[in-house]
């Protein structure tokens, strides 16, 4: 169990910057997910922690000790590869024992630990089978077991569920979470699937284009995105972002959203109020917060109705504006071409700076 600290970590491949200025501390025993689209630098970060890639800038510390000079075989990092990298020319037992053998653990101790691990992961029945041809879920457990058996201080998982079919994923998610509680190791989990990150991680680090955008608990990330990218990326569908202009009214400041109407008066936090507002803003609200309201001061035409079972997604838009609304099916559903009038709870509105993309005022 170890704390991982990344400071000013950066990696350039030639002129391409894969990662820049990454600062992140992962606590002892914490489950952190690195979340972002492909090419965002999450795998590079992970590979640098494992030692497969050398950083071009910054430092990585395990428990305050820089490990940049420690070769990857000595870092004590357990790594589960995306395709599990099982040694298919060996038996399950040989796979499990590989690390112990490499580290010179005695035969009796090795046997004891391999058997214990096989028991824990329900691999005992196939211990002497060849690893080639085992099913994906067994391979995955084997990959975890193979790393876990050497008791690494840190566990790194690289998209371990991306090869699993959708039906099995939810089973795997709970299995993984349970395993992490059992081993209580520091765990870094790379994924592009927000559902995995949301359901399993203690904290999520959202990344894009080689930059760390926000770190926080799943709820923080969902409720208070600090960046337009995070706002759009998290949630399904992501947050609606409309361009608007700040206007004043008797009841306070509000946002003029051109053809979409105007927002209710803003409930500005003290910080936002003191910071002052730019003239132009990006006006963000979750599709789930769209409140159909015949008297609503916002209105958008319905372009498309997408029914997904318990709920329905309305695609709204016109005049260069696009937004989505997620509504419960109980409500009388407008049809295509109708104008949806709605309101948004001012407390649920998030404002972003149109230039930097950063949230205005942080927590509102």
């Amino acid at each position: 169990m170890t704390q991982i600290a990344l400071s000013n970590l950066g990696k350039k491949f030639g002129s391409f910057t894969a990662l820049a200025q990454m600062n992140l501390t992962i606590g002892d025993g914490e489950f952190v997910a690195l979340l972002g689209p492909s090419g965002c630098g999450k795998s590079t970060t992970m590979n640098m922690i494992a030692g497969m890639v050398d950083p071009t800038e910054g430092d990585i510390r395990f428990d305050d000790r820089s490990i940049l000079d420690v070769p990857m075989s000595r870092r004590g990092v357990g790594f589960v590869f995306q395709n599990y990298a099982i040694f298919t020319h060996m038996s399950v037992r040989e796979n499990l024992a590989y690390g112990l053998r490499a580290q010179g653990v005695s035969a009796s101790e090795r046997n004891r630990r391999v058997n214990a691990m096989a028991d824990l992961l329900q691999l005992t029945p196939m211990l002497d089978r060849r690893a080639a041809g085992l099913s994906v879920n067994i391979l995955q457990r084997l990959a975890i077991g193979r790393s876990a058996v050497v008791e690494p201080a840190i566990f790194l998982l690289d998209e371990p569920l991306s090869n699993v079919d959708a039906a099995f994923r939810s089973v795997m998610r709970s299995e993984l979470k349970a395993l992490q509680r059992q081993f209580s190791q520091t765990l870094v989990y790379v994924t592009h699937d927000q559902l995995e990150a949301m359901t399993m991680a203690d904290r999520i680090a959202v990344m894009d284009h080689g930059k760390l955008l926000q770190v926080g608990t799943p709820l923080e990330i969902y409720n208070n995105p600090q960046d337009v990218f995070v706002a759009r990326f998290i949630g399904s569908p992501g947050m609606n972002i409309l361009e608007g202009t700040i206007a004043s009214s008797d009841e306070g400041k509000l946002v003029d959203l051109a053809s979409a109407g105007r927002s209710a008066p803003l409930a500005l936090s003290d910080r936002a109020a003191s910071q002052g507002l730019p003239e132009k803003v990006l006006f963000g609200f979750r599709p789930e917060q769209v409140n159909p309201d015949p008297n609503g001061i916002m209105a958008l035409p319905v372009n498309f109705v997408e029914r997904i079972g318990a709920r329905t997604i309305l695609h709204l838009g016109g005049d260069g504006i696009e937004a989505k609304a997620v509504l419960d099916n109980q409500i009388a559903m407008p049809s295509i071409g109708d104008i949806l009038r709605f309101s948004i709870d001012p407390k649920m509105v998030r404002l972003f700076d149109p230039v930097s993309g950063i949230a205005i005022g942080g927590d509102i």
Partner: protein
Amino acid sequence: MNGVSVKKADIAVLPQDNAGSEEKRLGFWLTLPAQCLVLFIAVFPILMQLYISMTDWSPLDGIPWYRAYELWIGFINYTDLASDSRFWAAMWRTFLVMIVCVPIQFLLGLGLAVLFVDEFPGKRWFYSTLLIPMMVVPAVAGYMFFLLFQSGGPVNDLLSLFSASPVKIAWLSDPSLALVAVMAADIWQWTPLMFLILLAGMISVPQDQQMAAVLLGASWGRRFFTIVLPRMKTIIIIALAIRTIEIFKIFDTLYIMTGGGPGVATETISVYIYKVTQQDLIWGYVAAIALAILIVLSVISAIAISKMSKGANAR
């Protein structure tokens, strides 16, 4: 190559696809030229070979080959072969070249593959340069080594640097050294082939499995011997089989360097067959030898082929 497998090929040429009959006919016509050529070079000659090997026929006898039955002697040629000491000596020499050259080529090729498996500046240039020997025409390679091993040639010149008096070893006319020179030429020319094949195999070993081994604490040696080598098994067998079989065929280089001599000191099986054909002209006997060798090589190649098709399927 045996007659049976080729006959099967003739029957099996009709495609089993459920495509239309036009497609079937096209498939037949497309493979026809190749089938004919195979028939021409393989089936017919082998039957003729079998026929002649049962006779005492020689082109000097003045009777055409199709009347060789007049000199029918049955299996005498084959029983003679069993007690032909020159044949067995040639076999032994071939075997010697094989057990010396193939392992050396393998180890050198493997070592080079290890040096080339990851990227480094200049890799492409070095790689191309290393492949040159295998592309030199073997007869020319034979001539190169003929020049190198002259008693006044550069090999002795180099050796002289390490000794007090000028070295004057007559490499190619000393019966105990000529085979060494021949082996040197073979190693020089064909190590690049081993290197080429083994490198391709080594690169195809999954990178993440190697990384996984290292992350589990494996040293370089443990990773190499428990992951890389076992994963290259098929390719190693292919490479060894190709070289083993080709040693039986070694002729050009050797014949130009030494002509099989001095005496019979470098007479391998191919050179022996050639000499019996060209000089002694007892063709009935040669046919018997050639058929015997063919059977030996068929066994080796059958093993290699089954491995190769497995290797191709595994990819």
